[in-house]
């Protein structure tokens, strides 16, 4: 028995058949002490089986340390699963820390479509402003799988990361990463943290998030 239902698979085949253009590269990182690595493996296999445009590589957190060092992952991520995307710009700078299950699965699917079709869902003004950022930005969005409002927050920051490779944006599943959730005092989701400086809760409008981001980078 797989994770996706027959209907889900049919739906994805149809949707991906229509909307995927370029191939998408996803890096799936496993480790020891990993609650959902097996499920994540199944999930990526099933998703990738629905379109030949979805390529994935499986990495090991320990063995592939050197490769992973180049990615600006949040500090304190000490186990998998990680599902990381290479953006349209060719850099791996956004993704999921913890399994993108529950509501989060929809953000995962939308990321695939957005990267592959090279289509962004944010306004031209936002893209303009984001493109100008030269300093590294680190965005974390904490979620739980039962939060219906979280995927739109995650998708938004992933869109930001697709615009500019200096912007690193990761979903963190709070229940799989309790140490990080504690460190950032996550008591409500989605919780957004930018550069460890600006933080706020909620799936906020694009404009508001952009303003907070600009504040955090001092622009």
């Amino acid at each position, binding site marked *: 028995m797989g994770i996706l239902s027959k209907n889900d698979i049919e739906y994805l085949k149809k949707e991906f058949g229509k909307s995927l253009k370029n191939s998408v590269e996803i890096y799936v990182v496993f480790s020891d002490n990993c609650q959902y690595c097996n499920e994540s493996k199944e999930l990526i296999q099933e998703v990738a089986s629905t379109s030949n445009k979805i390529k994935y590589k499986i990495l090991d957190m320990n063995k592939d340390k050197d490769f992973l060092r180049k990615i600006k992952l949040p500090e304190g991520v000490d186990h998998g699963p990680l599902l990381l995307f290479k953006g349209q710009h060719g850099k791996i700078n956004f993704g999921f820390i913890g399994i993108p299950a*529950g509501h989060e699965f*929809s953000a995962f699917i*939308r990321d695939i479509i957005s990267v592959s*079709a090279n289509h962004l869902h944010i306004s031209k003004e936002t893209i303009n402003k984001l493109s100008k950022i030269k300093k590294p930005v680190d965005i974390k969005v904490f979620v*739980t799988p039962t939060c*219906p409002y979280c995927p*739109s927050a995650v998708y938004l920051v992933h869109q930001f990361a697709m615009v500019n490779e200096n912007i690193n944006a990761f979903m963190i599943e709070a229940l799989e990463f309790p140490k990080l959730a504690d460190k950032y005092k996550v008591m*409500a989701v989605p919780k957004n943290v930018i550069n460890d400086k600006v933080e706020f809760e909620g799936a906020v*409008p694009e404009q508001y998030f952009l303003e907070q981001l600009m504040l955090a980078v001092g622009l």
Partner: protein
Amino acid sequence: MISVSLATPPKEEKIKEHYDVAIIGGGPAGCSAAIYARRFMLDVVIISKHLGGLITDAEMVDNYPGLPEISGKELGERFVNHAKKYKADFVEKFVTGIKKVSDEFEIKLEDGRTIKASTVIFATGETHNKLGVPGEEELTGKGVSYCAMCDAPLFKDKIVAVVGGGNTAFTDAQLLAKHAKKVYLIHRRATFRADPIEVERVKATENIEFVIPYVVKRIIGENKVERLLLRKTEIKDGKIMETDETMELEVDGVFIDIGLRPNSLLAQDLGVNVNERGYIIVDEDMQTNIQGVYAAGDATDKASKFRQVVLAAAQGAIAAFSAYKYLKAKKTKK
């Protein structure tokens, strides 16, 4: 076991400049309106944050005819996918403004774009009420929560309170009891609006304790919720009165379930009439006081006493039919 959810909106927001019908809100009422409007061959756009609407907050829905025991998440997705099948356009943005320009409507989105439409259907639903006590704003997200589904697992082995006496408070208390060490259920009366079956279930749950009849006066804490200040109430001449008796309760979190209020400010900006509680006033055709403007679902005065998916869907269908009739009549006049 893990599960996945598939509410993917269409990949591209190819927005047209003008639509026959713009539906604000993508919950049951909005999606149903879109399905019907498309069947009448109208150009339709649904503009909505959080597609699927409030029903996605429900763990289980067991009263939508024909679909027994469906999760709220899945029911919401089905509504959205059904509207997608009929090729309604979707724009997943907040609407920040709306105005009438000659006999058209200009709808302003959060990202600055505008969409024009000949008719508008408000299917904007409701949002959670706030307690309105000191500490609530400041500690929102720091222990004050309005979504138990989202945040309950973050309170594992902690002490939490739920405020309210309706079904949502009672189901939230049960959900929280699975994660938290202790759950207090605070209500300003000693009787409850919640269905008797939910009350029985809560009474049978060991780690839920009733704190009644009390009102919350203040939420206290430095950077997170630490305590609640409560005041005991009594009934005098049928009215709830506060007594002099206060007490403090140590909690890590407080979930507020004291009902909902309509999202009708946008409609009001346009000049749409609302009742004394803010619900959009519609006639039996879901027509508001402004020509070409309709409303459906939980945001309307027709639903304000019985807010259910089945009603929202029905009203959406009626609103779409009314918009169709209006547009047809307008065309033949020209």
